[in-house]
Structures are given as structure tokens and as C-alpha cells.
């Protein structure tokens, strides 16, 4: 035991001596949370649009003003002919062109009908769709203003209530995601690299002939990263509560327990990678190239899982991050307890055991 503690101490020194890595290890979560909280959002606003007004009457001016006043759109420029639409799209700045038909106001008075064409650059389907929806909403409001006084019968009024995140802040969705990505990559990547590093430099053999049992050597190497990851988890949670007002409705204790469980799952995955990879470079490529994108894309972090094709939804089940994100959202935002999360928790425990068994079977005490 004493030997083991000595070994762990040595590992700690080893990591903390490297100031640059320390700086990044702790700076990274802060930088990412700040970016996601303040800068990155998948809401759409300030979209540059252009106007082609073939009518130029009081009504169209009114509508243009309304659109300009909304936070969603900036009217970039007026264009004079249909030919220019292609030109502005190719430059890439303008995302949509609103075309008012000729005699817009006249038609509105005579036939009580007017039409506006919304041509959008649909290379980005999400933005194109949202622009269309937003313009629709703005025009509907305007239409209601025009129709004031005309009591139209049979109105169904809908009240929408947004649960768990009434202000629709995107940071509520991103905090669990960022936390997962960081814990996963720091734990899996760091361990896999640090173990293969010993292999590559030939120092692993020295460790293996030491009186410490091989599994204690591995645990000793993994231990500091558990500690580091826990600190990272705490930093992320504290920042999200105090800087972004993300609530933790559920039990902090459960949150801590689940975080440690996830860290352990990721660490065992890291150990597994290190049993496969012979060089640091290989370990890096597997853990970084192999884990980063799947964790970001298939965990429900940025893109909704329910919209993906079925085979991908099935694949997503083997990504530990998916289950941890469900757990985090459940505890932090919904306030649910273990009664609702036992399945996800069980899956993580199973994965940790599975990776451990696989690593032990893969592990060669004698290096060739």
C-alpha cells in the first residue's frame, strides 16, 4: 500500500510539473463553457436579408420597417432586379431576399390579398426554414393589426408553456454537452496517452518489473486523472450555475456520484485504447479522431438524436456520452432522481465493467 501511494504521488508530480498541460487542462473547460454560454447558439438572429420591392408603396414600406425592427433580421441592401438575387447569394452574405409583388398595396385593398415571396439561400436548410417561419410570424402580426376591428369568429387560442427552460436559453442544452465532451476526452485521451507513453519510451517495462502488481500500476496512472476530471467537473458546474444561471434542480450528491461514474467509464475506455495502441501517436489518433466527432455528433450534444436515421439512433446507444447527457439533463434541469435514471446509470456501470474486462484480456504483462 505504501509503495502504491508513493507511486501515485510520483504520477501526480509528473502531471503537475508540466505547467503548460495544466494550464490547458483547466483552461479548456473554462474557455469552452464561456464560448458556449456567450457566443455559440443555434438560434438564428441578425440574419442579413435583401429586399426586392417592386411595388414601393406605403404598405411595403411599413412591412419592411417591421422586419427591420425585429432582432432576427438586418436588411443588408435593396436590390433592383431579379438578376441580382443570384449575385448576392453567391457572395454569401445575404441569406434571403424578400420579393414584394407589383401593386402590393393595391391588391391588398382591392382583393384583400397580397403575396410576398421569400427566396432563401437553402444551402443551409435550417437557416432557410427559420427565416421563412420568422417572416411568416412577423407578417401574421401585421395582418392582425390590419384586421383589427373585424371580429373574426371561431378563434382557437393556444398557450404554449416551455418546461425546464422557459426562456429557451441554448446554454441550458450546451452545459451538459460541454461537460460530457470535456470529461470524456480528458479522461479517455489523457489515460490512453500517458500509458502508451510509458510503453513507447520503454519505461513501462521498468514499471512492470517493479514489485507493484500490474493492475496497481494502471490504477496508479489513472488515479491523478480521476482527480483532475473531478476538479474539471466542479469548475464547469460552478461556472454554469453562477455565470449562466443554469439551475441544479436535482440532488447535487447524485450529480457528483454520476459524474464520477462517467469519469471512471471514460478512464476504462482510455485504458482499453492504451492496450490496443502501441505508440502515443496511435493512441492519440484513436482517442481524438475516433472519439471526438462521435461524441460531439452522436450524443445529442448539438444535434437532436430523435431526428437521426434509425441506424444512427441505434449506434448512439454504444456512446457512453449519450447516457451521461441524459443523466445530466435529468438531474440538473428536470430534477429527477435515481428512480428515473437507474437504466442510464446501469448502462454506464455495465460499460465500465465491459471495458475493464476487455482491457484485462488484452493486456500483455510481457511487452514484446
Amino acid at each position: 500500500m505504501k509503495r502504491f501511494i508513493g507511486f501515485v504521488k510520483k504520477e501526480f508530480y509528473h502531471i503537475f510539473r508540466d505547467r503548460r498541460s495544466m494550464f490547458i487542462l483547466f483552461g479548456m473547460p473554462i474557455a469552452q463553457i464561456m464560448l458556449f454560454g456567450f457566443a455559440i447558439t443555434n438560434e438564428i438572429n441578425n440574419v442579413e436579408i435583401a429586399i426586392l420591392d417592386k411595388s414601393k408603396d406605403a404598405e411595403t414600406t411599413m412591412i419592411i420597417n417591421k422586419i427591420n425592427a425585429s432582432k432576427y433580421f438586418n436588411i443588408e441592401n435593396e436590390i433592383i432586379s431579379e438578376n441580382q438575387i443570384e449575385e448576392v447569394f453567391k457572395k454569401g452574405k445575404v441569406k434571403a431576399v424578400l420579393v414584394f409583388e407589383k401593386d402590393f398595396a393595391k391588391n391588398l385593398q382591392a382583393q384583400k390579398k397580397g403575396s410576398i415571396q421569400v427566396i432563401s439561400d437553402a444551402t443551409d436548410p435550417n437557416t432557410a426554414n427559420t427565416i421563412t417561419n420568422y417572416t411568416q410570424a412577423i407578417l401574421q402580426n401585421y395582418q392582425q393589426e390590419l384586421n383589427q376591428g373585424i371580429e373574426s369568429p371561431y378563434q382557437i387560442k393556444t398557450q404554449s408553456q416551455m418546461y425546464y427552460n422557459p426562456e429557451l436559453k441554448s446554454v441550458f442544452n450546451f452545459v451538459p454537452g460541454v461537460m460530457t465532451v470535456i470529461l470524456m476526452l480528458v479522461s479517455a485521451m489523457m489515460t490512453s496517452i500517458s500509458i502508451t507513453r510509458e510503453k513507447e519510451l520503454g519505461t513501462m517495462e521498468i514499471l512492470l518489473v517493479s514489485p507493484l502488481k500490474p493492475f496497481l500500476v494502471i490504477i496508479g496512472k489513472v488515479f491523478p486523472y480521476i482527480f483532475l476530471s473531478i476538479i474539471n467537473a466542479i469548475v464547469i458546474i460552478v461556472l454554469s450555475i453562477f455565470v449562466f444561471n443554469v439551475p441544479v434542480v436535482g440532488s447535487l450528491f447524485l450529480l457528483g456520484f454520476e459524474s464520477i461514474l462517467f469519469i471512471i467509464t471514460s478512464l476504462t475506455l482510455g485504458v482499453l485504447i492504451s492496450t490496443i495502441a502501441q505508440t502515443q501517436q496511435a493512441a492519440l489518433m484513436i482517442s481524438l479522431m475516433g472519439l471526438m466527432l462521435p461524441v460531439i455528433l452522436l450524443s445529442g450534444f448539438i444535434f437532436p438524436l430523435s431526428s437521426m436515421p434509425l441506424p444512427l439512433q441505434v449506434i448512439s446507444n454504444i456512446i457512453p456520452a449519450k447516457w451521461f447527457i441524459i443523466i445530466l439533463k435529468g438531474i440538473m434541469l428536470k430534477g429527477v432522481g435515481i428512480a428515473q435514471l437507474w437504466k442510464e446509470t446501469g448502462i454506464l456501470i455495465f460499460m465500465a465493467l465491459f471495458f475493464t474486462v476487455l482491457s484485462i484480456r488484452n493486456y500483455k504483462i510481457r511487452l514484446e
Partner: protein
Amino acid sequence: MKTIIYIVQKEFKQIMRNKGMLPIILVLPLLQLLILSNAATFEVKNIQFSYVNYDKTTSSNALLDRFRASTYFNIVEDFPSKKLADDAMEKGRVEVILEIPRNFESNLVKNETADLAVYINAIDGAKAGVQNVYVNQIIRSYNQEILINAYQQNQQLTRPINIEIIPSFWYNNTLNYKTYMVPGILVLLVTMITLFLSGMNIVREKEMGTLEQINVTPIKKYQFIIGKLFPFWVLGMLILTVGLIIAKLIFAIPIIGNIALIYLFSSVYILVILGMGLLISNFTDTQQQAMFIAWFFVVIFILMSGLFTPIESMPIWAQNMTLFNPIRYFVEVIRMVMLKGSGFSDISRQFFIICFYAFLMNGLAVWSYKKTN
């Protein structure tokens, strides 16, 4: 020149000899392009929809039929009470609950107005916003139908003004997400591979002690650097090429613009990334450090590139930050050229900026590279 060719040969041999790395370098990114491109969609469909119908009349059933008919909604369950529906939302089984109050129909007939309540799981705010729009569209169109019937029965009513929106989606009229994402993800993979490999390469020699051996040879600094980086440049272009072929043949992504333009831009772009990798190598002592720094920058560059989330929605300071992000320019350019057919004059701004960065990065890298420690 001869010296450079020898180093290039040596480096290529070293890469090719490493049987374990080759599949990781070449296959992993392309496999990811094939699989993950299907995952990147902000489309909202398969909405787990449920309802509580306290009314159970012809009107409420007719309204629910509209939800059943819509392709966006999967009707999960018909709950007898709001409480049970809430529990299901808590467990994550349903995302949207529509509550139809008692007397929905009689209110509509008698008072000419009726209320509906919609509850949405809004943890993902953007998704909840879209779900809300879809729900309201269905309810509105149902309302519209009732109104039209009313006007037909009673000609006395004044018709309200109606402004119609005619949407038209250019360049991607089926709103296919892959068209947008595949070129972007390709950029990402090319960037990651070239940055990680070049960033680790020289520091690896440092760590192993072999760099000193090279330093005592008469090879000049620039010869060594060019020789080291050229293979990675080739590798990057190779992955780009295979990726473009996959995009075209498997995802049927249109390539409207001039493909030479994409290659011109990429060839300079990869130089920027290689310069960054070299710079990272110069400032680190171990592969672990190098990889950390590379990862740190890559994550920030990806997030701020407009690849997944629009740049226009960022606050101004963040938008200004993206001006220093090379990935941003490549993502913009490859999408513009491939999907819209933008020409050189449309992308010249991005091209000159990236040329400037190439000089800057490589200049700094060569300058900071020391032959002697």
C-alpha cells in the same frame, strides 16, 4: 532540392511502413464522413407527441387527426390525465403534450373562442421553438378550415385581409441537410488529420531524441521543414480528394462550381494548418503537450467556424474572433463553391486572407524553429 526529395522519401517510407497507423489516418476520417454526415441535422422530426383529451368530441378528435396525419409527429400515447403526461415527460418518453380542455367544442361553438394548452420540453431551446411552430401550424390550419366553413355559411361576414408567404428555397430545394454538412465535415476531417499529424511529428523526434541527430547533419532548416511537412500536405489533399468523391458518388452532393477553385484554396489552406502544427511542435516538449494544445485550438476553431452553428448569431466580439479562424474560411468557401457555384471573385477575400495566414504561420514557424537547443 535533392536533399528535400530525400527527406520526403524517408518521411513517406516512415508513414507507409507503419501498418497500424495507415488505416487510422486514411480510413477513420472517411468512415466518419460516411457515417456522421447522417447525424448532423437540425431538422426536427419524429417528435414524441402525446395528448390529454378532456373533451372527446368531434372537434377535438378532428384536431388530433391532423396531428396523426402529420409526418413530424409520432403519437406516443393518449394520457388520461395531465399528471401522467408530465411524468412521462420527466422520464423523457414524450417531448410535447397537447392538452384539450373540457368544453373545447362547446366553447368554440358558443363563445366563438376556445383554448388549448401545449407543453414542451424546452431543454433544447432551438428544438422546442421549432416544435412549437409545428404544433401551432397544425392548430392554425385547423382553425382556418373552421373559418372557411363559417364564411361559406354566412356571406355577411367581412373577409379579413390575408397576406400570403410564398417560400422558395434556392440551391437546395429539398432542404437536404447532408448537402450542407458533408462539405463542412470534410473540411473538419482534413484539418484535424493534418494538424494532429504535423503537430506531433517534430515534437516526436524531439521526445525520442532523434531530432538532435538530424540537427547535426548539414541539412538546412528550410529543407528539413519542407521535407517533413510535404508528405502531410499530400495526405491532406488525398483525403480531400477521396472525400469529394464520396460526397459526389455516395451523398450525391452537387459540385456546381469550379473544382479547381476548391483545390487552389485547399492547397493554401493546408499550408496554414501545417504551419500551425509546426508552430505547436516548436513550443512543446512532448507529444502529449502538443496534442493538448492542438486539441484546444481545434475545438475552439470548430465551434467558432460556422460549421454547426451560424456565425451571424454570435455576439459581435465573437464574430470578430472568427476572423482569425482559418476553418471558418474553408467551410465558407467549400460550401459556396460546391453548392452555389461561386467564382473566384466571390471568394477572393477569403482566398487572400488565407494566403496571408499561410505566410504568417509558416514564417513564424520557421523563425521559431531552432536547430540548436
